[in-house]
């Protein structure tokens, strides 16, 4: 096609308004979405000399859609603003309804342009983030209180505890986590033994790799790995489950049926995790030591018998207990954050995603902070 898809013809009309006669504008072609890109640029530059009446003739259009009607309507508005009297009489009946509908929409409301204030904005954002963080901490603390109260009530009346739900979550968070947790702990043990052996060999103290493994895995790495994996696996699942229930208004339904949301959704999850996490941590300890033993045998020729004997001398019961005692606390934090973020979900699918991410990040953050607090505490207690 040689011609443009849509165009405008202008000519001087006789008579018209007061001085110099008026203009006759004729729209031709297909005024539609396809033509809009080139049309809108041309129309922005379009202007007529002099004043007088402008007759806009739309009766010879081949086609017009909403975009075309909008462009013609803004053209008429601009000509009016430029001091012309605009006559829009010539519209074909099949286009009239659409043209009128678009005319009725009118121009965009004038928006107040905001002056940019980069430094103030940054300060405001920083303040907001800080206050939000503090609020989040306060809310989590009050949620912990709510869980504790509900726990207490259930202790007085244990028959209200959802035993089946607890079992279900033990299976989900505990049993089903065994393969991945076992594999990762084993590999961590392998890596630790390998790196430790590399360093200790220089001093001829290869055998002390067992001490290194025993103390680090039992005290810190076993439980920390477990907590981080469970936060990623189960904490996120809690948020997504409860969040989706929130979107489906199931949480509202629970409340209106006179049931307690915390008792029904949060306590079983928290309890299940507090039971499984110590068990998982123990399992991770064993798997980590096993990985270390395998690697020690492969690279340092330390037999399993030697490994066990050395371990027996290196590790005492407190080492093991120091690791394990942290497990229920971490479990409570992971479950609490997971459920809390899930309950914060509002309406949209997007908020489930955002809050799930937030729940994982927040629980891992809290786990590590608490681990540091425990370290300080144990050093005071000389454990």
């Amino acid at each position: 096609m040689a011609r443009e898809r849509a165009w405008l013809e202008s000519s001087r009309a006789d008579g018209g308004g007061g001085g110099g006669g008026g203009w006759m504008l004729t729209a031709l072609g297909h005024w539609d979405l396809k033509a809009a890109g080139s049309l809108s640029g041309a129309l922005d530059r379009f202007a007529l000399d002099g004043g007088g009446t402008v007759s806009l003739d739309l009766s010879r259009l081949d086609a017009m859609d909403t975009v075309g009607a909008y462009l013609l309507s803004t053209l008429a508005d601009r000509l009016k603003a430029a001091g012309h009297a605009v006559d829009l009489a010539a519209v074909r009946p099949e286009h009239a309804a659409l043209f009128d509908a678009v005319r009725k929409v009118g121009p965009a409301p004038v928006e107040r342009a905001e002056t940019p204030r980069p430094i103030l904005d940054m300060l405001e954002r920083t303040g907001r983030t800080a206050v939000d963080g503090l609020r989040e901490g306060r809310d989590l603390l009050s949620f912990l209180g709510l869980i504790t109260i509900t726990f207490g009530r259930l202790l007085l009346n244990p028959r209200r505890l959802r035993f089946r739900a607890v079992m279900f979550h033990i299976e989900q968070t505990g049993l089903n986590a065994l393969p991945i947790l076992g594999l990762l702990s084993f590999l961590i043990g392998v890596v630790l033994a390998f790196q430790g052996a590399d360093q200790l060999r220089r001093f001829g103290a290869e055998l002390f790799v067992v001490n290194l493994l025993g103390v680090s895995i039992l005290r810190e790495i076993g439980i920390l790995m477990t907590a981080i994996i469970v936060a990623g696996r189960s904490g996120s699942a809690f948020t997504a489950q409860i969040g989706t229930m929130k979107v489906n208004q199931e949480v509202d339904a629970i409340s209106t049926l006179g049931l307690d949301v915390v008792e029904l959704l949060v306590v079983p999850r928290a309890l299940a995790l507090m039971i499984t996490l110590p068990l998982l941590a123990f399992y991770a300890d064993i798997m980590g030591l096993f990985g270390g033993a395998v690697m020690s045998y492969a690279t340092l020729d330390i037999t399993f018998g030697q490994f066990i004997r050395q371990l027996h001398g290196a590790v005492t019961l407190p080492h093991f207990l120091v690791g394990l005692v942290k497990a229920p606390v971490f479990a409570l934090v992971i479950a609490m954050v997971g459920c809390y973020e899930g309950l914060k979900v509002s309406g949209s699918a997007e908020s489930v995603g955002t809050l799930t991410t937030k729940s994982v990040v927040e629980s891992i953050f809290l786990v590590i902070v608490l681990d540091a607090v425990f370290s300080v505490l144990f050093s005071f207690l000389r454990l």
Partner: protein
Amino acid sequence: MAADNDKRFDGKQPDAQDAVIRVRGLVTRFGPQVVHDGLDLDVRRGEVLGVVGGSGTGKSVLLKEILGLIRPADGRIELLGRDTADLPEAERVTLQARTGVLFQNGALFSSMTVAENVMVPLKEHTDLSAALAAEIARVKIAMSGLPPNAGAKFPAELSGGMVKRAGLARALALDPDILFLDEPTAGLDPIGAAAFDQLIRNLQRSLGLTVFMVTHDLDSLTSICDRIAVLVDKKIRVGTLEQHLRDPHPWIHDYFHGPRGRAARHAES
């Protein structure tokens, strides 16, 4: 591209020539369950067709098959003169740009504002400048009967009726030839539903739309539909309201002569 289906062959099937949607011998199966068995349907240019049927008769499935979201087991579906079965990618996209769909619950993208939702097809299918696309979105939002401040809101902040109007604005963003509506008035109060019916009627007239509307709302059927398609016995029967009122088929008789059907017709007359 519409040139060949705009051609008229004198005397030959005037109905079929003018059909923007043509379904022939459609068969739908879910496992052993047959939903449609040799279903034929013509939707004429510029009409509002209401599709009714009992639960499980495959109204929404038919809609999805016409839209190409589900593949039928057998049969032919032509949309604007093109067979939808084996279209090349480019033509399929062009065809999709000429149809607009309002899903039952709006299906707005929840991470975007209403205005951004309406601008999605404009950005995807046209070369409009961002400013013009925003203006067009504003016009569509206003034409759908939403207040001007609705454009900046997120779907979660809207009421049910406003979500439907926003969904309609998005469906109409590209000035489609055919508008598909899945239960547009479900979940609206009677006043809101009547206003929505009127809105669809007005937009249909001003934009020259063909409307394919799956509905359960007897008021919509009596007030804005030109013809009504009833899904019974795995086939479809199309006719005006008067023709259906005379139909002896038990389900159709119960549907239009039941207390609700009578009430809707009384309200209309």
